[in-house]
C-alpha cells in the first residue's frame, strides 16, 4: 500500500517532467512543492516553466490518475459482483452507453443544460445505466448468466450503440469533433475545472464502493450461499452496478471512452495480492491511477508534438490481455 502510494507520487513528478519541453526532476519537484501551502521556496524557475507544470501538465496528470482510479475500481466491483473476471465497464458496454448519453446531451439538449458542462455526466449516467440494463437482461436466461454470454451481450450492445453514435456523428455539424473525441478517448487540453467536475462523482462512488468490500468477498461464495449468510444479493447487485456506472459515466463524460483499464489492473492486482476485496479494492484503485498516468504520459510524449489517443494505448495493452483471459477462461470450462 505505502509502496504504491510512493510509486504514485514519484510517477506524478516524473510525468510532470516529461513532455515537449523536458524539465529536470528537482526543478519539477520544487515547482510542485512551491504550490503547497506552508512551503516557501525562492523561485529559481521562469513563469513559463511554472505555467507548464502547474497549469498545463498537472491538471492532466491529476485527471489521468482520477480516471484511472475510477475505471479500475469499477472493474473490481463489476468483476466481484458478477463473479466474472471479464466484466469491465468497457466490455460490458457501459462506456459506450455513457458516450452516447453524453453525445446526445450535446446535440439535442443544449438548451436544457443550464449548467452546460456540469450536466453532461448526468446524461452519460443515464446512457450508461440503460446500456448496462440492456446487456444484463440480454445475458440472463432463467436467472442464470454465464460469463461468455455476458461478454457477447456486451458486444451486441456495443455495436448497436456504436452505430447510433456514428449516426449522431453523421447528422451533427460543429459538434462532430467532440463526439469523435468521446469515441477515441483523450486527456488533451484539460484544466482544473475538469478535475473539479469529476470530484463529487468520484467521492460518491469511492465512498460507496469502499463500504462494500465485505459483501464483495461474500458474493464470491455464490449468490445463494451469500443469501443464506444474510446478504440481500439482488439489492446489493443493483446498487453496486449503479455505483460503477456512475463512476464510468463521469469518467467518460470528461475524457471519452478509455477501454480495458478496469480489466487489466484488477486482474494483475488479484494475481499479486489475492482475492480479498478489503485489500484488492484500495490497491487496484491506486494501481489504476498509476497505470493510466503512465499510459497518458506515453500518449502525449512518445511521438514528439503529436498526441496519440489514450484509448489506443490502453487497447494495445488491453486487447491482447483480454484475448489471453478469454482463452484461459474457455480452457478451464472444457
Amino acid at each position, binding site marked *: 500500500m505505502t509502496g504504491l502510494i510512493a510509486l504514485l507520487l514519484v510517477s506524478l513528478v516524473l510525468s510532470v517532467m516529461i513532455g515537449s519541453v523536458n524539465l529536470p526532476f528537482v526543478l519539477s519537484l520544487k515547482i510542485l512543492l512551491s504550490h503547497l501551502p506552508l512551503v516557501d521556496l525562492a523561485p529559481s524557475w521562469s513563469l513559463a516553466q511554472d505555467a507548464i507544470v502547474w497549469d498545463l501538465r498537472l491538471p492532466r496528470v491529476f485527471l489521468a490518475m482520477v480516471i484511472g482510479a475510477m475505471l479500475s475500481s469499477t472493474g473490481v466491483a463489476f468483476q466481484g459482483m458478477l463473479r466474472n473476471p471479464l466484466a469491465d465497464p468497457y466490455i460490458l458496454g457501459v462506456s459506450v452507453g455513457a458516450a452516447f448519453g453524453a453525445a446526445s446531451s450535446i446535440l439535442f439538449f443544449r438548451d436544457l443544460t443550464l449548467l452546460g458542462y456540469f450536466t453532461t455526466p448526468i446524461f452519460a449516467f443515464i446512457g450508461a445505466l440503460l446500456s448496462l440494463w440492456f446487456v444484463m437482461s440480454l445475458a440472463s436466461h432463467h436467472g442464470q448468466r454465464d460469463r461468455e454470454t455476458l461478454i457477447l451481450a456486451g458486444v451486441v450492445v456495443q455495436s448497436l450503440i456504436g452505430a447510433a453514435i456514428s449516426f449522431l456523428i453523421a447528422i451533427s455539424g460543429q459538434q462532430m469533433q467532440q463526439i469523435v473525441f468521446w469515441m477515441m478517448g483523450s486527456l488533451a487540453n484539460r484544466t482544473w475545472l475538469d478535475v473539479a467536475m469529476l470530484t463529487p462523482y468520484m467521492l460518491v462512488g469511492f465512498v460507496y464502493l469502499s463500504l462494500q468490500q465485505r459483501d464483495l468477498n461474500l458474493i464470491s*461464495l455464490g449468490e445463494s450461499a451469500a443469501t*443464506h449468510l444474510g446478504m440481500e444479493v439482488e439489492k446489493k447487485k443493483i446498487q453496486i452496478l449503479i455505483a460503477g456506472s456512475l463512476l464510468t459515466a463521469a469518467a467518460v463524460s470528461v475524457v471519452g471512452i478509455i477501454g480495458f483499464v478496469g480489466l487489466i489492473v484488477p486482474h494483475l492486482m488479484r494475481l499479486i495480492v489475492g482475492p480479498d476485496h478489503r485489500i484488492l479494492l484500495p490497491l487496484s484503485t491506486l494501481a489504476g491511477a498509476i497505470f493510466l498516468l503512465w499510459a497518458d504520459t506515453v500518449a502525449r510524449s512518445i511521438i514528439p508534438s503529436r498526441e496519440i489517443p489514450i484509448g489506443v494505448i490502453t487497447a494495445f495493452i488491453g486487447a491482447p490481455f483480454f484475448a489471453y483471459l478469454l482463452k484461459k477462461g474457455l480452457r478451464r470450462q472444457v
Partner: protein
Amino acid sequence: MNLFDVSQVQHHFETNSVLENISFQVKVGEIFGIIGPNGSGKSTLIRTMSGLLKPSQGEILFYNKAIGSYKKRDLAKLIAVLEQEGIPPLSFTIEEVVAMGRYPWLKPLADLSHLDEQIIEDVLKNLNLWKIKSQAVSALSGGQRQMVSLARAMVQQPKVLILDEPTTFLDIGHQMLVMDHVREWHQSQGITIIMVLHDLNLASQYCDRLLLLDKGYVQSYGKIHDVLKPETISTVYKTEVIMIEHPVQHVPQFLLTSQ
C-alpha cells in the same frame, strides 16, 4: 413445538408443476430427512424452506411466522444451509471462508471481535482444519471442501441446519465424516437438522423422521419404519429392492438387485 409448519405448498416453474399440495411439520431438535427420486421436488422444497424461493402457493411458517417475513440477515442467524455444490474453487484460505460464516452477526463495517475469532478457532480445531487453515480452498479435495462448508455453517451458530444432498460427491469415508460431525453437532447443541438425502441407507441411519416425495407429492411421511417400506420404495424408485435390518443399528437398509 413445531419449528417448520409447511401447509398446502405448491410451486410451478412456468407451466411445470414441481410441488403439489405439500404439508408437513418439522419439530424442534429432530433430524428430519427428505428423500425421493430425481426430479421429485426435494431441492425446490428445501429452497422454499430456506427462504430462497417463494412458493407459488401455500404457507411456510418458521417459529410460527411466515418465512418470507424474516429479514435475510435475521434468517441467517437462525438457519444455515449447506449446498450440494459446496464452495467454489476460490483462492481465499480456509480460515477466510469459514470466517464469512460470521457475516450475519457482524455489525456493519465492524471487524471480527475476539469472540468471533474464538468461535472460528474452536470450529476449525473441532473439524481438524486448524493445521491447514491457511491453505487456499481451491487446492482442497471435494471432501475437504464440504468440511469447510460445514465449518462455515457451524460458525454461523444457527438453530437449524439445512443440508441439500451433502454427500452426493463424496467417497464413503468423507460421507461418514460429514454425517458424523453433523450428528455430533446436533447432539451437543440441540440444533434441528433438515437434510435432503439421496442415499436411503444414510437417511435411515441418521434421521428421526422422513418425508418421501414422489413427482412433487408427499408419498409418505413419518417415522423411519413407516416410510421405508420395501413396497413403497420399489414403487416410487421403480426398481426392485430388498430390505434387511442393519445388524448393529437395527434400522432398515436396502440392497439393490440387478435385473
